[in-house]
């Protein structure tokens, strides 16, 4: 059996090269980092009434959420669909590499991107948006958003396992953008029509953003535990679904 050291090296290399390979794809990096930042500067800072900084703070949460969703969903969905189509995933599976190293590598890449987005948006909020938060709020928000990548990574994984490499980008966009809008990530959820507000409960992004807003006491006032529970249930459901699909599509144990 593999020694602990060697498997650790596999995990490290896998993660490193996944990150390197994504990092060398400008078509992925630029939109992933620039979209949330530009959107935030535009809607959260520029069009925000000056003075209280509270709209900039509100939008900081929602656009952070918007930002971290993208890389998680796209990296998983597109690269897994493409690795599947190209046979690269099959080759890896026949090597002694543990499947978990492959998935954790993708997760690590998503987290690095999430962290970069958080750093960018936090900087913008602090420098231009006059956002002033307590240290525990800044840190709490950053940690929450990092952890919050999990359900979106799972959605990406599910799509990556089921879609062709050609269909994946389109479908992810088709899910990503409406989900962001309907969860109140672009406009505050309270400004959406009543029906849409109710539909917001369907999306993990709504619950993640509400948890984030809760840190700033700007949420809609539902129980944090409820949001947390719904996120966990969604994640658990997605995990189960991924396992099922994984067995069917890849035929692994």
């Amino acid at each position, binding site marked *: 059996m593999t020694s602990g050291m060697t498997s650790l090296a596999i995990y490290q290399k896998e993660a490193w090269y996944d990150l390197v390979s994504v990092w060398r794809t400008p078509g992925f990096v630029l939109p992933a980092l620039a979209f949330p930042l530009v959107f935030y500067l535009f809607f959260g800072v520029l069009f925000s009434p000056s003075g209280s900084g509270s709209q900039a703070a509100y939008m900081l949460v929602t656009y952070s959420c918007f930002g971290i969703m993208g890389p998680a969903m796209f990296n998983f969905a597109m690269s897994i669909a493409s690795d599947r*189509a*190209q046979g690269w995933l099959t080759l890896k599976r026949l090597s002694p590499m543990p499947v978990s190293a492959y998935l954790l590598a993708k997760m690590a890449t998503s987290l690095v991107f999430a962290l970069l987005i958080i750093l960018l948006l936090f900087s913008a909020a602090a420098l231009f948006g006059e956002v002033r938060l307590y240290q525990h709020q800044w840190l709490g928000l950053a940690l929450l958003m990092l952890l919050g990548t999990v359900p979106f990574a799972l959605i990406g994984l599910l799509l990556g396992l089921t879609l062709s490499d050609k269909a994946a980008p389109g479908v992810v966009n088709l899910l990503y953008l409406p989900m962001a809008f309907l969860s109140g990530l672009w406009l505050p959820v309270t400004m959406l029509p009543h029906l849409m507000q109710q539909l917001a409960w369907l999306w993990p992004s709504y619950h993640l953003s509400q948890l984030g807003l809760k840190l700033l006491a700007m949420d809609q006032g539902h129980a944090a535990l409820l949001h947390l529970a719904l996120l966990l249930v969604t994640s658990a459901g997605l995990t189960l679904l991924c396992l099922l699909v994984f067995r069917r599509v890849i035929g692994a144990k």
Partner: protein
Amino acid sequence: MNPDVNTDQTLLQLTQLHKSFAGKPVLSGVDLRAKAGEVLCILGPNGAGKTTLISAILGLIAADSGDIYLLGQLQQGASRSVALRQQLGVMLQIGSLPATLTVAEHCDLFASYYLAGYSATELVTLAGLEAHAKQRFGRLSGGQKQRLLFALALAGKPRLLFLDEPTLGMDVEARRGLWQQIRQLQQQGVSIVLTTHYLEEAEQLANRIMVLHQGKFIASGSPSELKALTQYKVITCCSALTDAALLALPGVLQLNRQPQGVTLHSSHAEQTVLALLTADNTVSQLEVSQVALEQAFLQLTRGDGTEAVGSEKEEQAA
């Protein structure tokens, strides 16, 4: 396990392997055995079941029935242990590795998977891509890509190596180079299972060629034995002659008697038929046909061109 080369050691054995998709049989009772230091070439036209067979052996799909022994261990279903995978090498026909990683990086990554394999630099050398180590995969030529994939298959110094159409897209020189490497591996005692539709490649490399046709091996033997086999024709008829008389006819090598008649294998069918008709004027339902192997070969030859074209297209797309 004994690391010494032991040519009697069976590294791969299949017995009565069956697999069907949606009720349609793809493999129907495949038996196979490969020993250390043996290059086994599986030859077959498109749709013969080559891919299914390799997939079943490697555990990418589960066989319906039959036993698979890899390195002496009976395999269950579609799972292969990590310890086993440490000793296997696989080169598949795949479109592309992540295009933005360099040759050296791919080698580094794959080298890290194996406990007792080659180092990253050794793999680059094995691929013969020292000059292109820093080149991204996406910028390599088709042949260079194949060489890299071949090198990655060797990353763990495997005892059992599967090569699926390894020379596809290579020019003549590169192909000969690869053949040379395969021969070296063979001498080191590696058991190699190779699928190809280049007859020439099979003749050049294989100790044994097995011809897969409609999910069954219809012939197996050394390249020369198989070549001889393709000369035979099959004569079926109803004849009053005894078996001894029939066997005495010119060219007859083999006889099978069945309720509805006899089947003769002949190396000179025209002379056999002439003699038969002379000896027995009651002969009825006379039929002369080519052996299945020959049909298979014909299809192979036909398929050769079309499949090669298809592969090139695929590569361009990639």
